[in-house]
């Protein structure tokens, strides 16, 4: 089974620029998550989708971050405008359904550096 695909692997941008990350989950996985992992910290949930609907975006800085999952498959996370503190690894994960019992599969992540 193919894993969770993310692109790009690395991105360097200047502050106030915009950036977008893409995630393709495992086929058939209804639940998709975006996590932010700042250096030296554990991953923090940004947003959770169930099919094409948002389940939880309480930790998403909505003034600059947006995410969508059109058609309930691929997802895009956007930052506009970026700040220095957005430098982190952005991890996408997918799960068969909305229960941790099914387990998560993580992608390799996108490492963002804001200069």
């Amino acid at each position: 089974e193919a894993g969770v695909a993310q692109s790009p692997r690395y991105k360097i941008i200047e502050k106030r620029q915009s950036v977008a990350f893409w995630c393709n989950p495992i086929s058939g996985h209804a639940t998709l998550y975006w996590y932010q992992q700042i250096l030296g910290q554990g991953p923090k949930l940004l947003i959770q989708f169930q099919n094409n609907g948002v389940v939880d975006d309480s930790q998403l800085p909505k003034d600059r971050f947006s995410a969508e999952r059109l058609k309930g498959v691929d997802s895009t996370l956007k930052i506009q405008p970026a700040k220095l503190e957005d430098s982190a690894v952005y991890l996408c994960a997918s799960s068969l359904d909305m229960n941790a019992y099914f387990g998560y599969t993580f992608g390799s992540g996108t490492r963002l550096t804001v200069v």
Partner: protein
Amino acid sequence: AQSVTQPDIHITVSEGASLELRCNYSYGATPYLFWYVQSPGQGLQLLLKYFSGDTLVQGIKGFEAEFKRSQSSFNLRKPSVHWSDAAEYFCAGATGGGNKLTFGTGTQLKVEL
């Protein structure tokens, strides 16, 4: 608040020595608990998980973890560490039946040859 704590930021062990990584949880009821490993530049790989039942859980790569309710702990162990085990290890929890993982801050493992 529901949380997972990993008290050790860095741990160094010699190859062939035993390993124990600590994890403490704070949940109202018995949570689902997980251990993940992350190698540099890689995503998170699941080592093992606990939902209920037998408190000693076996995982991949020779790892095991023991759920101790009395100590609110879920420590990860390996009897003999290999150099390839050097990585960052994350403990994570979710409410029973829930779906949102809360991660600890991670423990960086260094293996000396």
